[in-house]
């Protein structure tokens, strides 16, 4: 009975459990592979796919080409290789989408948990959430960028500065839904018996929150995360459109989509590529979320 070796709980075993369950979820696997592919593509793609160095005059002659061997995704109105631009754009868009989503999720979850768990904070925090919900997004972003752009650019350089600012601005304006959902969940979760049980053994609030409450809000947070990525990518393009985003020669998927819009009728592929990339990202995040939710739930895992 005391088979110690078999009984030794490996610290990693739980993670491995999650992973092995995750692997059986077809959608999640599809999502992970697709997202992984996209990330790898934008990370190393630009080193592998180096477009020919063309002079401006040569390039202009090749503008608005359809897909070909030479230009797998065609060229844009200035004869630039769309594949190369898509890859470069993906770096920013994926980074912005994922990082801003993470900020929104982390912040939203944090606020939601505080509001839900500590009665006294509930009122003020929820009014704050109301306020953020009610604030007009565009002027808010304008003011934020105006106030901080130069300061941040001065510290970490214009591109990284723009990135930080955009990611932060988007994150800080999109946490409200998460906070509301999480708060609602926490309100019921904190009445659960096992939370009371944790208190009865003298656990501190931070442990109760981390170990007993947080894992149970994963599922709604995952939904919010999925929506968050799409929103962040699109918001970034709107920001660029208002001149608040990245330097104008810095492609992002949102901007490519926006730019391509003028050409949609004549060269539909100009919008298809960025649109496809954004949709794929969102779809894969959605499926990963589904899979993760299932995998994190030992009740489902057992089946």
């Amino acid at each position, binding site marked *: 009975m005391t088979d110690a070796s078999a009984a030794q709980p490996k610290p990693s*075993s*739980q993670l491995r459990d999650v992973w092995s369950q995750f692997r059986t979820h077809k959608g999640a696997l599809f999502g992970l592979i697709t997202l992984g592919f996209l990330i790898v593509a934008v990370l190393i793609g630009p080193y592998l796919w180096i477009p020919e160095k063309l002079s401006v005059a040569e390039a202009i002659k090749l503008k608005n080409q359809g897909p070909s061997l030479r230009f797998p995704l065609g060229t844009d109105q200035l004869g630039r290789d769309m594949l190369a631009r898509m890859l470069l754009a993906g770096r920013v868009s994926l980074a912005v989408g994922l990082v801003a989503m993470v900020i929104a999720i982390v912040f939203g979850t944090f606020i939601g948990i505080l509001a839900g768990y500590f009665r006294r904070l509930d009122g003020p925090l929820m009014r704050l959430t109301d306020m953020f919900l009610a604030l007009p997004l565009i002027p808010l972003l304008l003011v934020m960028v105006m106030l901080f752009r130069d300061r941040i650019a001065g510290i970490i350089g214009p591109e990284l500065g723009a990135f930080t600012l955009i990611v932060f601005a988007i994150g800080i304006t999109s946490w409200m839904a998460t906070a509301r959902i999480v708060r609602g969940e926490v309100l019921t979760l904190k009445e659960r018996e*096992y939370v009371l049980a944790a*208190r*009865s053994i*003298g656990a*501190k609030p931070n442990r109760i929150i981390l170990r007993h409450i947080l894992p149970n809000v994963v599922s709604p947070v995952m939904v919010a995360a999925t929506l968050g990525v799409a929103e962040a990518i699109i918001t970034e393009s709107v920001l660029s459109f208002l001149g608040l985003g990245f330097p104008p020669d810095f492609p992002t998927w949102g901007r490519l989509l926006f730019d391509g819009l003028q050409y949609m009728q004549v060269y539909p592929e100009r919008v298809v590529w960025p649109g496809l990339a954004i949709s794929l990202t969102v779809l894969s995040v959605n499926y990963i979320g589904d899979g993760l939710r299932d995998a994190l739930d*030992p009740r489902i895992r057992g089946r």
Partner: protein
Amino acid sequence: MLDAGAPPLVQVEDLKMHFPIYTGIFRKHTGDVKAVDGVSFDITAGQTLGLVGESGCGKSTVGRAMLRLYEPTAGRVIIDGDDVAKLAPEALRRKRPTMQMVFQDPQASLNPRMTLADIVSEPLDEHTDWTRDRKLERVYELMDQVGLNRRFVNRFPHEFSGGQRQRIGIARALALKPRFIVCDEPIAALDVSIQAQVVNLLEDLQEKLGLTYLFISHDLSMVRHLAQRVAVMYLGRIAELSPSRDLYARPLHPYAEALLSAVNEPDPELAARRNRIILKGDVPSPANPPKGCNFCTRCPKVMDICRNVKPSLAEVEPGRLVACHLYTPAAGSTGGSEANERNQQGETR
């Protein structure tokens, strides 16, 4: 109760737990749910006090308020020398290892996302600075004590049967070597054979470790089996507090009597011969209890005085405390003889 010389480990004095009701535009405090309304008892070290009563009468609330899982409205709860009701948060946290709780619902009180090892070692994480190995060693030790196979360490709660789950809850409660455990209906949700396993385990542990229990249950036969003394609660107050042998032989309070008569014996012969008192009507709301005796709305032996004056818990026989006007001199004769008469309100079968 037998060795009256042993000092009580737990003393509860006039414990009150009122849940406030707020109404109106400005959230005015307009009333209270008097879940527990002045309860006093004590428990001798190494013994078990049974706590029985109707659903919703405040049994769990007593247990939880005693361990400061709720902030009691009034009263003193002295456990091992400290007044738990008044401890500062940090002191309370450090006091927790001496007093633990086994929860009513084994499924609900275990975090479904934690493994057995995590659950049982959580109190150790919180109160000790042991190494991982040392904690694991203790977890194994506890699992042996409660009879869980060591191979189960990495299992999740849903992978256990009800009885096993309850054992996890007990192991968790034992982890810090407490002196006092509140067992809140630890067997209600289990099937018969598993109930027996759990009860035996509790008994074994009491014997080995000298534990003190408050055993909350509505299974009266189990209480009889386990407890030396039994408190019968009704609507937030104690109706009768007697040694278990006396209570089961001859309940004094009319409610205790009705309760005992309702128990089903697993014996068809006996069942056919039994007289049971079926109470009529519903339990009054604890937010708005009757003016006099709490039980007066349903009592088969109700008298006029019951509707106006709250009876207090008084010792009517050696070791037996009852809160009933039948036994107070003011209400006329000592109720002993009347206790056997059936009033028209109760049905006799």
